[in-house]
């Protein structure tokens, strides 16, 4: 299965990645190879087998509803490139 260049550009846009023309072509080939591998797996007959979403025993571990302090404001903001009024600042997002 071969991906089109447009599909690669769409996937890159979803991840907000800017790719050069060379990268687009390289990733197109690599992603296509991954999809080919998935196609081989899909050829296996699995209609009688329930999907495995985890290899752990299906038992939900729950915790009590009790709050505890988390990060201090200083710790929370320490790695942010830009802050203002104790908030993270980011570039505007296209709407």
């Amino acid at each position, binding site marked *: 299965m071969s991906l089109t260049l447009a599909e690669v550009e769409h996937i890159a846009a979803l991840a907000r990645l800017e790719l050069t023309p060379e990268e687009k072509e390289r990733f197109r080939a690599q992603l296509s190879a991954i999809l080919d591998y998935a196609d081989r797996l899909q050829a296996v007959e699995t209609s009688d087998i329930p999907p495995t979403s985890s290899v752990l025993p299906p038992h*939900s571990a729950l915790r009590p509803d009790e709050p505890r302090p*988390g990060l201090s404001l200083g710790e*929370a903001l320490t790695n942010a490139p830009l802050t203002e009024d104790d*908030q*993270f600042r*980011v570039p*505007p997002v296209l709407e």
Partner: protein
Amino acid sequence: MTKYEAVIGLETHIQLNTTSKIFCVCKADSWNDPPNTNICPVCTGLPGVLPVLNQRVVEKALLLAVAMHAEIQPESYFDRKNYFYPDLPKGYQITQYDRPIALGGWLDVPVPASPAGGAYIRRVGIAKLHMEEDAGKTRNAGHLRQIDFNRCGVPLIEMVTNPDLRTAAEAAQYLTRLRQLLRWIGVSEADMEKGHLRCDANVSIRPAGSQVLNPKTEIKNVNAIDAVREAIEKEFERQVREVEAGHRIEAWTLDWDEEAQVLRKMRSKETEADYRYFREPDLLPVCLTQAQIDAAAQEMPERPLDRRARFMETYQLPEYDAEILTAERQLSDFFEAAATAYGDEPKKVSNWMMNEVLRMLNEQGLTAGELRLQPAHLAEIIQLVDDGAVNAATGKALLAKVQQSGRSPAQVVADEGLARVSDDSAIRAVVEAVLSESPKEVESYRAGKVTLIGWFVGQVMRRMGGKADPALARSILEELLR
């Protein structure tokens, strides 16, 4: 000219009122807290952390599912919904996709009579109900955006209706009844102003009576019931104009601008496939035992509309009274306890509730559960008035004094000497004093102006601090004025 009807489905996001967040131990309610003070490595998506599901979230989701008559799924799964937005530090939202905790269900919504027709019940089907985490808050500040992550990871229930609503008024009623139910069963504060209950509306139109489903638009960001009604009404009218003009309705996403009261077209969003859902590998399936499901059914109280109907049936209350008394669960509990303590004439208890108790709640900004005045106190006060031990005005004042002091009505009456004076000689002495001090009025009365009797009674009552039996005062006055 073709007559059109609207086909409306609502998607609601309900913030659960748990103490901590859904997957981490941060405090959930940040309404009064400064930005970024209730966050931790889990809810800000730092590397190497693992989510652990809050037990109360599952319990509250279950209770809501029971309340909506939904089919609870013994096994449900969490998934990752991938999208890139600054309010979502992980780059994905943990939600439930194809295996939610509950499917189906319904809510019966009474729609009051209007100029368009009589009252009726609209049954609104529920497609699915699932658990997920809320995202942070962003706001524009100059040419950049500020982000507060406090709301990240606050538990949400997303509940999607079938396209069963036909008018904007029905949609507003659905939200009103849903909000009442959420508070009633105690799963959410459901305060729309605080964003506890948020709503998106899907709207399409078709010729009235037709069964087709046409392309729909999705209205986002309507966070008040009146705004939902307004926005749907406007969108319905716009679609009718478009179709009448021979245009096709396109599947737009519209943003409601509350200030300008207009809908604006939003940039088209990702399609379903773009979210690249997959099972959340860090969480195991939620497995519910029959015992847990039974416990939720046990915990489910009588629903507000069922209680309303029972109040009309058992206590013979008019619909108007029953509606007001069941607006809120603690208020309805208060009425029922007071009516039981009083014994007969529940309508009389209802009148005291609707006039005196509700006024007190409004004036003091309290809920029925916060009153010091107990249902038994109310019953006792009505009884004191019935027995003639205090007059009606004193009875009303007693309510306030009991609420203020926490003492029982009988105690307040004894402590403050409020008991009505029905002793003939005590009233007679005051009447004589009033008459001797008002020769002009006495003369007018005797000359035929008998309406002055009210003024004389008033004088006597005032001198006796309102404690005189007014009927007795009147008969003594009439006797001495003859």
